[in-house]
């Protein structure tokens, strides 16, 4: 009996020793990867978000309000379907399938159908976290933290200037899904937070999961016109100056509901945050010009009028960034003939 007991202890000791060895070996391995690790976790996360099927429930907390939502995301080849469903309140739903985003507002018995520009990038095409990003964000972390009974890696993106927000992410070690996301301002104060309570990554998600839960057949359906008038060559718009780290990532003509003419849509990104600029011609003496800041959730917007065009910048960035970008938009010289109708107001 006694011998047996001592041998057990011995075995335990040796097991403990090898476990320590393994731990040291693992630490070494991790140490090698540590240099680029937070960035790699971000890339893994982006990859997971855009390539994996997932169904999850999360709480969204912004401006002191909490809302519970379910998200269903499916990727089949180049086909991305997504359903965002509010579990609180009126049960609004956003369902994206193919190039259509259908917004259901049961409280208003209204359905809004938005279409993507046909020449737009793949939904999965995302800004890459390049070296540029490291110039404007301090990317830190990679340490493990327990969250929702899962092991996560915590990565922070701290903005190096006042032109962007920071992120703090709890990335699931096994799946690379962000289980918790915080949007923070320069001082580190949390502006917006998303926390998943459940998340599944099924192999397949049936089409039936992308049907709205309400019968919308009696709702009013509003659609953007599919085609935009293309007889006039849309002016090539660009930004003269941009905040540090931002670059133009995309430029297209977009059909928006009710617009007879294409709306120029420019996208600027610093690799993490992005800002869209929309340029619409103003018919003289018709549309009231809109100038000033606005806010949708934690997104900022700024509108101004430039050369007879309504220019609006929108993005998940601080208000000063959208304002700066909006005011820097100009038509390229090669394409200004389209502006003939609008007298360029030079007045300051």
């Amino acid at each position, binding site marked *: 009996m006694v011998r047996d007991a001592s041998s057990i202890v011995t075995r335990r000791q040796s097991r403990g020793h090898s476990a320590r060895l393994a731990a040291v070996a693992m630490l070494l391995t991790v140490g090698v990867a540590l240099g680029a690790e937070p960035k790699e976790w971000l890339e893994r*996360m*982006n990859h997971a978000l855009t390539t994996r099927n997932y169904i999850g429930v999360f709480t969204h907390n*912004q*401006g*002191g*309000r*909490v809302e519970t*939502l379910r998200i269903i995301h499916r990727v089949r080849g180049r086909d991305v379907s997504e359903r*965002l469903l509010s579990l609180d309140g009126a049960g609004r739903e*956003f369902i994206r399938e193919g190039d259509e*985003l259908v*917004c259901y507002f049961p*409280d*208003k*018995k209204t359905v*809004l159908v*938005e279409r*993507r520009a046909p020449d737009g990038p793949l*939904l999965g095409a*995302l*800004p890459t976290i390049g070296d540029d990003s490291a110039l404007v964000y301090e990317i830190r972390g990679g340490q493990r933290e327990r969250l929702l009974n899962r092991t996560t890696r915590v990565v922070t993106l701290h903005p190096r200037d006042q032109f962007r927000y920071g992120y703090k992410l709890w990335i699931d070690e096994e799946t690379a899904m962000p289980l918790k996301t*915080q949007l923070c*301002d320069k*001082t580190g*104060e*949390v*502006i917006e937070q*998303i926390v998943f309570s459940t998340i599944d990554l099924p192999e397949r998600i049936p089409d039936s999961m992308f049907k709205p839960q309400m019968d919308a057949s009696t709702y*009013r359906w*509003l659609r953007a016109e599919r085609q935009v008038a293309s007889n006039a060559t849309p002016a090539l718009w660009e930004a003269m100056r941009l905040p540090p780290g931002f670059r133009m990532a*995309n430029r297209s003509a977009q059909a*928006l*509901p*009710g617009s*007879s003419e294409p709306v120029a849509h420019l*996208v600027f990104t610093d690799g*993490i945050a*992005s800002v*869209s600029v929309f340029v619409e011609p103003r018919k003289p*003496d*018709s*549309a*009231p*010009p809109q100038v*000033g*800041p*606005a*806010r*949708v*959730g*934690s*997104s900022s*917007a700024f*509108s101004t009028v430039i050369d007879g065009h309504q220019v609006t910048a*929108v*993005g*998940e960035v*601080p208000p000063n960034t959208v304002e700066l970008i909006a005011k820097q938009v100009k038509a390229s010289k090669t394409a200004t003939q389209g502006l003939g109708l609008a*007298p360029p107001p030079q*007045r300051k």
Partner: protein
Amino acid sequence: MKEETSEERHVERDSQLSAMFDGELSAAECELIARRLARDEALRSQWSRYAMVGAALRAERGVALHERVAFRVQAAIAQEVTYGEDVAATSTRTAAVVPGEVLRRAGTRRWSALAKPMFGAGIAASVAAASILMLRGQGDTEQPALLAAAPASENVVLASEAAPAPAAGTLASAAARRPSSGEPERYITPPSGQAGIASPARLANYVVAHSEYSGPLSRRMALLGLVGAEAANEDASTPADAEDSSAVAAGAPDGP
């Protein structure tokens, strides 16, 4: 000089429309804008572009159909004679009695009437009308005045059928404020301080379009902003509210 005046007028008109959407204008002022919308095709189509989105986005809580104003607006914008008569009749009945039942029935009829031109040539007018229907604020203190002026709504309908002539009654005082230059109604803009982009609806369009082009993280954030768009609007008008909150994501959205 002339250009600047016109620009100013645009700004003012814009903020008036905005104020109306925010439920801050009196009933009489709303009616004037509605009539202006009925006459001014350009203005109407401008608004149709985004009015409905904002309506849908903002009207979930705290803002409800303002039936009586709704009828006026509808009547002013309606082009079809029979349709206009129908609404006018309903409106009069409503004004006289105002039980909830009548309002609801009238509402149903209005939607079915709206449904027809929705995908046709009448889309601009319909959408503009609907947006006003939906966005009119609930806490309107002008209701009694509006009820008293009920007969005027018939005048409005008749006027819009025949010619854009000013109607009598409640409109007189506002008409007196018109400048002689020919630019129609000018209204009192309430000092709401919300002088930013006047159209949350168009903004919503932009945010949706933008979300398609941003990274997966920020895309989610952007769309979530839309789900809670009404909250955003409130934050914009009363930033102090955000600071009162003690929840996790509280804090000053306007921080540096």
